[in-house]
């Protein structure tokens, strides 16, 4: 039972993260590998705010998400304008990996990160509804809210403009839209969601570590985003579930068969790589994306 509660909570958090990534990649055509960086920064900032500065968890999460969005603003203005797609991807990759280094050296807790991050806290007294269940319901609520928000966004004008920008920026510009502004707005929104998810994760696990921004996390995000399908935000719930549950299931299966656990971990990693490759070639919703030509900034 506890496992189910934990799994659903983790998947809800991942959904929040993936919803933003899906919007960024499939709707606007921006390939960013920086989601992990914002995830980790949101986690660390919220952890520090709540553990060291004594803010209540909810406040810490919101403040952290907003603050990290400020970083995203700086990065977005700097790179969205001047870099074309693949270089932007590489720059954001550098951002994520640099974040790992910064967190490892000057970040609180150093190499192994910080433990003792306060949990979500309870709204209703814990004997009425157990605390983990409250956390789960809260995270589910946030996930559902973000899905609704993104779906609404798609129906709005900005969603249509983003689609136009993805297909051909130059034409979009001649039509009077401002591609850079739209890209920036979407980038900020997705970064906010990523940071919020990171903050939630920090309070769920009680620990923050530098490797929250590492290449493993980046691959995880890619797989989740790819599996979410391009069109519907609900697909992110599916992607999130897969990404959260597959490692757990593999571990239990391998442990039950007394096989070395490390093989489970490797199998999981290899499966992720395989999923990416297979989906690129076969995923129908990806045709729309992979068929797009290289664009100039």
């Amino acid at each position, binding site marked *: 039972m506890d496992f189910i509660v934990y799994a659903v909570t983790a998947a809800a958090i991942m959904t929040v993260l993936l919803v933003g990534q899906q919007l960024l990649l499939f709707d606007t055509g921006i*390939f960013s590998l920086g989601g992990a960086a914002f995830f980790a920064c949101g986690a660390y900032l919220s952890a520090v705010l709540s553990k060291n500065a004594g803010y209540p968890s909810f406040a810490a999460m919101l403040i952290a998400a907003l603050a990290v969005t400020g970083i995203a603003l700086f990065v977005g203005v*700097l*790179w969205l304008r*001047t*870099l*074309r*797609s*693949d*270089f932007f*991807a*590489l*720059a954001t990759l*550098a*951002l994520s*990996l*640099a974040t790992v*280094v*910064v967190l*490892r*050296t*000057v970040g609180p807790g150093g190499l192994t990160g910080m433990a003792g991050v306060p949990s979500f806290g309870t709204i209703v007294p814990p004997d009425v509804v157990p605390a983990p269940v409250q956390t789960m319901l809260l995270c589910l609520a946030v996930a559902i809210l973000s899905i609704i928000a993104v779906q609404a966004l798609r129906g709005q004008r900005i969603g249509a403009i983003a689609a136009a920008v993805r297909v051909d920026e130059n034409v979009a510009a001649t039509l009077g839209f401002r591609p850079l502004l739209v890209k920036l707005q979407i980038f900020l929104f997705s970064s906010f969601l990523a940071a919020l998810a990171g903050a939630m994760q920090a309070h769920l696990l009680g620990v923050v570590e530098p490797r929250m921004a590492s*290449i493993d996390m980046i*691959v995880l995000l*890619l797989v989740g985003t*790819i599996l979410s399908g391009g069109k519907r935000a609900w697909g992110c719930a599916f992607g999130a579930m897969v990404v959260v549950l597959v490692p757990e299931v593999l571990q239990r299966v391998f442990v039950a068969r007394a096989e070395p656990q*490390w*093989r489970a971990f*490797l*199998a999981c*990693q*290899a499966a*992720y*790589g*395989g*999923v*990416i*490759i297979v989906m*690129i*070639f076969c995923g129908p919703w990806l045709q729309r*994306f*992979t*068929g*797009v*030509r*290289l664009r*100039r*900034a």
Partner: protein
Amino acid sequence: MFYEAIINGLIVGAIYAVVALGYSLVYSVLGFVNFAHGDLLAVGVYLCLFLSTGGLGLPLLIAIPVAVGITGLLAAGIGRLLLIPAAQKSSLAALLVAIGVSVILQSALAAVFTSEALPFHGGGFLGTTVSAWLPMKWLHVATLAGGVGSLALLWAFFFHRSALGLEIRASASNPRAAQILGLRREQVFTVVFLISGVFAALAGIAVGLDDQLIVPTLGFSLGLRAFVASVIGGIRSLGGAVAGGFLLGITENLVAAAVLQVPKLAPYAGAFSKDAIAMVVLALVLTWRPRGVFDRSLETRP
């Protein structure tokens, strides 16, 4: 003190140069960053280990060429089957597929050989130091001479004299025009991967013999730094990649030497680590001079 740093920079710079060339070659001709390139270093050295002291017991003189050959063919195979078709869709698709291949290669190596550090001994006299005033091993001399030498040979004879080499250079400088001219695309692309795989394997084996302990992640961070080197030099410029490799190697070591002299910086030494420098340099170069230092292409933006 700084003399030693420069020597160390040359040692590691040679490796970066060789690996960076692979990135530049693939990017110039096919237009995407081959994330899987770094892991070919590990594949090469593990194959060599398996063929020699770790498994079949062949002498190094045989194990090395065989391992290099297999890795080259593996690289060509992966390129032909996965990366080239993906690149034909779009460069972002190829980037993603390369990431997937990289993950699979690392997992496969760790599954077969475990993530434990395995000893890799060999080379005999190559392990001895040249002399007191040249604090390098003969292995490093061999890598420098061999690496730079074979690059020079490749440059002079293959790229400038042979038909296929000329076609590769043409494709590298202008893929569209090459396509229009009807140059042998499939062969060009496959040979590009073959060359990059061969060089990656050689670099990996050199690193393995130098460290004498190998892990499956041997290629990953090294490859990433070599990629940064190729960006510094101008990712479309083959010569620039080589120069960038040495530049990064020397810079890394000079900074490390300088930081170690200042005790107050000790807790922050990690901020000046090789990975940190590489990532910061990458971000800076991409922001202000994405073309790289040596790029002479006519485009106004990369």
